[in-house]
């Protein structure tokens, strides 16, 4: 084995491993931890399907330090509604993302959660409260009844965290890596129509 490692091919493999390890180690960050959709359901209110979900986002000292250093975290909740088809791929009816940013406001010493789409923001004195707030999604309208026309539907929810807001000019630099983003497994269930 050692002999094989010191052959020309083995040396090449070792170099490639070192290169990859160096590249990934440089971006190892605070996104490690539990990232999971604990539960999710929808209810209908006047023909509107409202999503309720409970998500556990990672929280650790590294995240706190990163936030205090000025890094913005983006919390995403991807929602997809598909109509099931037997002989073909499912048809996507809805594909939405709830995107909220969490940042530490150094001047006010508060954690600010801002909805990217609406611009609304909430202030929290502690990170735990902000994370707890982010993990509770209640009454997010995702679908209206006229969009459904029979058949069976599958709804899937996935949570994600993104570290930092990369400037557009630098985004191309990191096209080859996804170490700045983590996503959970899809949480899926059939839509009760």
């Amino acid at each position, binding site marked *: 084995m050692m002999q094989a490692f010191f052959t020309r091919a083995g040396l090449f493999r070792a170099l490639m491993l070192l290169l990859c390890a160096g590249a990934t180690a440089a*971006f190892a960050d605070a996104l490690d931890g539990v990232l999971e959709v604990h539960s999710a359901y929808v209810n209908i209110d006047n023909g509107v399907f409202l999503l309720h979900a409970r998500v556990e986002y990672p929280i650790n000292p590294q995240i706190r330090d990163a936030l205090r250093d*000025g890094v*913005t975290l983006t919390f995403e909740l991807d929602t997809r509604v598909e109509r099931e088809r037997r002989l073909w791929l499912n048809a996507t009816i809805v594909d939405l993302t709830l995107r909220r940013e969490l940042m530490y406001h*150094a001047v006010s010493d508060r954690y600010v959660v801002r909805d990217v789409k609406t611009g609304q923001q909430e202030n929290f004195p502690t990170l735990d409260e902000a994370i707890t707030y982010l993990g509770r999604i209640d009454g997010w309208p995702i679908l209206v009844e006229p969009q459904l026309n029979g058949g069976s539907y599958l709804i899937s929810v996935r949570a994600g965290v993104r570290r930092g807001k990369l400037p557009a000019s630098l985004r191309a630099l*990191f096209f080859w890596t996804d170490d700045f983003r983590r996503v959970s497994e899809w949480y899926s269930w059939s839509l009760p129509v």
Partner: protein
Amino acid sequence: MVSTGLNRPQSGRKAWVIPALVILWGAVGVGALLLLAKSVQNSSAFDRLQPWILLLNLIGVVALTVLLARKLWQLVRDYRDHVPGSRLTARTVSIFGALVVAPLVIVYLFSLDFLNRGIDSWFKVEVKQGLSDALVLSGAALNLRMKEYSSRTEELAHSLAATGPGDIQEKIDGERRATGAMEIVLFGEHERILAASVEDPLETLPSRPPSDLVRQIREHRMYVSLEPQSDGQYYIRTAAPLSDPTTKAEARYVVAIYQVPPQISALSEAVQRSYSQYGELAALREALKSGFRLTLTLVLLLAMLAAIYGAIFFAQRLVRPVQNLIAGTRAVGKGDFGTRLPLPSRDEMGFLVHSFNDMTKRLRRAHEEATRSQQAVERERERLAIILARLSTGVLAVDRMLTVRMANQAAGSILGTELSVATGRSLPEVAAGNDRLGQFVAAIAVRFAAGRDEWREQLELDAAAGRRTLMCACTPMPGEGADMAYVIVFDDITTLLAAQRDAAWGEVARRLAHEIKNPLTPIQLSAERMRRKFLGSMSPSDAEILDRSTRTIVNQVEAMQQMVNAFSEYARAPEMKITRFSLNQLVTEVADLYRSQDPRAGIRLDLDESIDGIEADRGRIRQILNNLVTNALESLEGLNSPTLEIASRLESGGDASYAVVTVCDNGPGFQRELLGRVFDPYVTSKPKGTGLGLAIVKKIVEEHGGRIDADNRPEGGARVRVVLPVKDSTRSATGGARERRDALRRERA
């Protein structure tokens, strides 16, 4: 056609592989750039397109790697196989590669250093310290405000605690107007609003106190917080408890929200924004450096791969005309004068290729001319060979060492061996075991040894098969030294001489018969008349003498008449009566006749039943058989166990069939010196023979268009072989001896 190995346009599958890969690589590169440009517009597009960008880049790299590996492998293989031009290509690639790679590496190293230094300079300690100081400064400015508002709120709380319920609302409104607060709300237990004053009660409602505020108030502590808003404004929320916690009255607290002056808010927000941006960038510091390094390395690798591929590609394009010239030269060297090289361009190389094509064109014309001349010579040679093959005259070409250069078929037939396959062999070697050819070679050698290059003579070849007479003529052919050759032309004139002899003998016999027969009758009549007239009148002794003399005269005259008749018979050429009869039956009849006459003679028959019959003069054929059997029986006289065998066979020769009758005996055979002349008149070894028996036989055979041979059997005894055509038409076609004799007479006349 000689394989030239020219670099002609590739056909079939290989023709589109390289262009397809190049197009694929270009399309992938453009696609990746487009996707990249689109992805930087927003993050969601980037997330969606990232796998495709990665895939396209991977495909591009793989395509380029495949192209380069293919080119390098081809180059290495050609180099190892010593393909013409490969070393020049390798050298050109090395130079091009070095010229391209060296600047690339220098730029790469310089860029790496520049990037590292540049990125590090973004995060200087002074910048970070400045931001922190600004943050502290804005915090201090805001803290002053917060303390001020907190004190006011505390004073308000004390004032409200002492105010009765009916004056509270008025007190709050007055305080709000006096301090410029956005809202002042008095809460009771469970966040119940007891009184509130807001700027625009129709538009806004009192905000709910945050949980940390409630928590602190319950602990009977003052609360103040700075709350940034989405529009960039800053609010200061203060709260103070109204009642003493030790009392049992309802716990109340007042919450006031003040707006920070816009100037201070804007400045603070700017500081916060700068701090966040700096923090974002600082967090990406190492990632940026690694990303730049990796991206630069990838770009360098791609550029180097593309540069090396381009170097190989253009080197091969440059060398290709040279390779074509080498291959074309080799092809011309192997005799392919139809080689045409593709014109690469209109430069000096194109001029060289054009000159090469012009040269091959001229060479091809010259070659075609030479080929035509050679073909003409070959045709002439073939014609000559046909003529020589059809000649009945033997033609033999030898050099001075008697090595056969050429011999036609007739030469082999005359000399009794196959000479057409003896080309290149020594003539004495070929003549081993062949008496006739041996004598012929010896005669030639003697003349060459005597220095005679040109001669014309008649050669007598005396072999076991019979004497043959050849008329030879030798002439030297053009050439010198070892190339000196001689052509010997010879003709077998044995038959011609025999025919001449036959004609001469016929003439002699006819004249003898004519001249001798006329006086014989008067002599005989005179002798008989003398005997009748004087025999009675003479004394007995005289009468006896007369009687004996006249009887002798008469007997001798009769003997002479018989001889003359025999001559007449030889010279006479009566009309033949051709009928179809059974040859085997005739042979049987003749054999039975002689068996009855001489039972001692052991006559055996070996007849071929396939001979149905032949068309011939039956009486003459019987005479042939009689003469041959008589001749054989006479030679067998005195032997203890005489044996005579008569055999018949059917043979085919050309288009005709021949009946072959062979008469063999176990007698002493023909004398060797007479063997070539046994069919000549008056040639005999028997004391009582007239010498006309076999001559007449030969004459009859030839009149039937046949031929006759005589030789001695290896086991002893004579053998005569008569060949007769089965059909009379064959005889008419070939012509008989009589016709030849008549022709000779006409010629002589």
